[in-house]
């Protein structure tokens, strides 16, 4: 039977794995660039270009240089955390601490760099986001160094020869409850998929609510395809009317989370 790892060791692995993956995917996002099949990511070039353009620096090279600098910080942060993870795996805890420290310093530096940009470009939401990540990085390193690493084989305490059956029973009960809940949830989701997925493309009927005034209430799954199909159906159903205006109901007029997109079509008689 496999011996369970101490919680502190698992937390150390979790911290290193999280930051390694965090920076790896940030790096991939920069290398891939743009939205592709199986990858959307974030168009950082467009974001940086618009930021610098807003302060009067519209040359793409300025945005490229800033993005490349951020990319360098992220690349080295990734390599440091990957080195720390590798060292931890091999049991070289001093080395893991050293590389995770360098990775944390680079992470703090990256978020400090970003937060300077947020002040400069007036993006207060990103300032909050970057400050939170800055702090999470700092806190996770302090937690990491306070977690005891895995003990060497000589220090390990022998496991009891006759393990109690109580924990196994609890495992069994938890597993059974989880399995029932997974089955119920999965069934509900698949049933929902069968009934609702066609709403992703099906046209929505326009309901007349006044003279030359029609209401269209979108399903939550509705997107541009539904919008276009709805317009096509509306035009076919009302050949004598021309669309004069479409009024989108603003968020404050919607019923909080119960309403998806609602818009009104205002028409006039064709000459």
């Amino acid at each position: 039977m496999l011996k369970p790892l101490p919680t502190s060791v698992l937390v150390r692995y979790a911290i290193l794995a999280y930051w390694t993956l965090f920076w790896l995917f940030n790096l991939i996002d920069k290398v891939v660039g743009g939205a592709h099949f199986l990858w959307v990511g974030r168009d950082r070039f467009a974001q940086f270009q618009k930021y610098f353009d807003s302060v009067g620096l519209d040359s793409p090279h300025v945005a490229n240089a800033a993005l490349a600098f951020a990319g360098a910080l992220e690349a080295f942060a990734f390599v440091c955390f990957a080195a720390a993870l590798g060292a931890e795996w091999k049991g070289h805890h001093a080395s893991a601490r050293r590389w995770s420290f360098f990775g944390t310093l680079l992470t703090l530096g990256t978020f400090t760099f970003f937060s300077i940009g947020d002040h400069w470009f007036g993006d207060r939401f990103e300032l909050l986001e970057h400050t939170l990540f800055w702090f999470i990085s700092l806190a996770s390193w302090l937690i990491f160094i306070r977690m005891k690493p895995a003990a060497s084989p000589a220090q390990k305490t022998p496991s009891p020869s006759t393990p109690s059956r109580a924990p196994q029973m609890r495992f069994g009960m938890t597993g059974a409850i989880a399995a029932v809940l997974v089955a119920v949830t999965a069934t509900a989701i698949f049933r929902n998929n069968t009934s609702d997925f066609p709403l992703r493309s099906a046209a929505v009927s326009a309901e007349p609510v006044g003279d030359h005034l029609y209401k269209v209430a979108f399903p939550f799954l509705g997107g541009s395809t539904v919008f276009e199909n709805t317009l096509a159906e509306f035009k076919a159903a009302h050949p004598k009317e021309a669309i004069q205006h479409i009024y989108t109901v603003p968020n404050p007029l919607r019923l909080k989370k119960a309403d998806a997109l609602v818009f009104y079509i205002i028409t006039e008689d064709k000459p």
Partner: protein
Amino acid sequence: MTERALLRSAILIFWTFFWGLSVVDKVIPDVQFLWVGKDFFALFIKFFASLGLKDPLFATFALAGVSGLEAVNFALYLTALLSLRKDDETLTDTWFFRAILSSVALFSLFSIADQVFGDRFQLLEHGLFWLVLIASWMAFKHTPPAEIGSVSWSPTSAGRRVLISGGVLTALTAASIWNFSEATFAQASEPVAGEEVVEGVYKFDFPFLADKRVWETTVNTFMADHPELKVRYIYTGPSELNTKKKTHLLLYVFTEARQNQRGI
């Protein structure tokens, strides 16, 4: 160098820049060349007007008071940073604590104002900053002691591997960024091509780089390319129509056939 000194420097540098740039943002009004920042004056004017205090003096006094406190915060963090550079730990702790206390007090004031003005999102934002400040103080105090966390900068084989891998990844990322920029930069000025999705209705899927100048070029180009059509109406697709994160902006142009004025 020790882990303690480096981590404490990182904390102080972050907050010194934070408050220093907050002061700069108040000193530079509105949008200027090389600075955008946030228009706090407009924000304060609107907040006070919503209370019925429409005289700009109220907003001006409030903003001047806030800016003064931010300037004090900046000075306190700067003093703490300079004390750290002089290796005076007691003095650094004292000034950093004063800076934290002053910053926490300012965010408490902001939070009270957010409740008065009913801005719950800003209340969350200021509450989180408040928490991060307190936690920064805890982290500052609990950095590992100097004697157990010395940082060695001497080159090792692992260090060389990290440097080489980081350098290669940086070069790869930079090359990819420049390629992507060259391939897409034209989208910042080129018109977007329209697609007729319903009879007489054209869809324009704007790229992320597009701004108001692209909109103008697009509409003008469309009208030049379709002299037989008259633009009746332009509908900006709300965010619900976008495929999350993938679409920047959808625009629908409703057209009708132009009537022949001469009756030919």
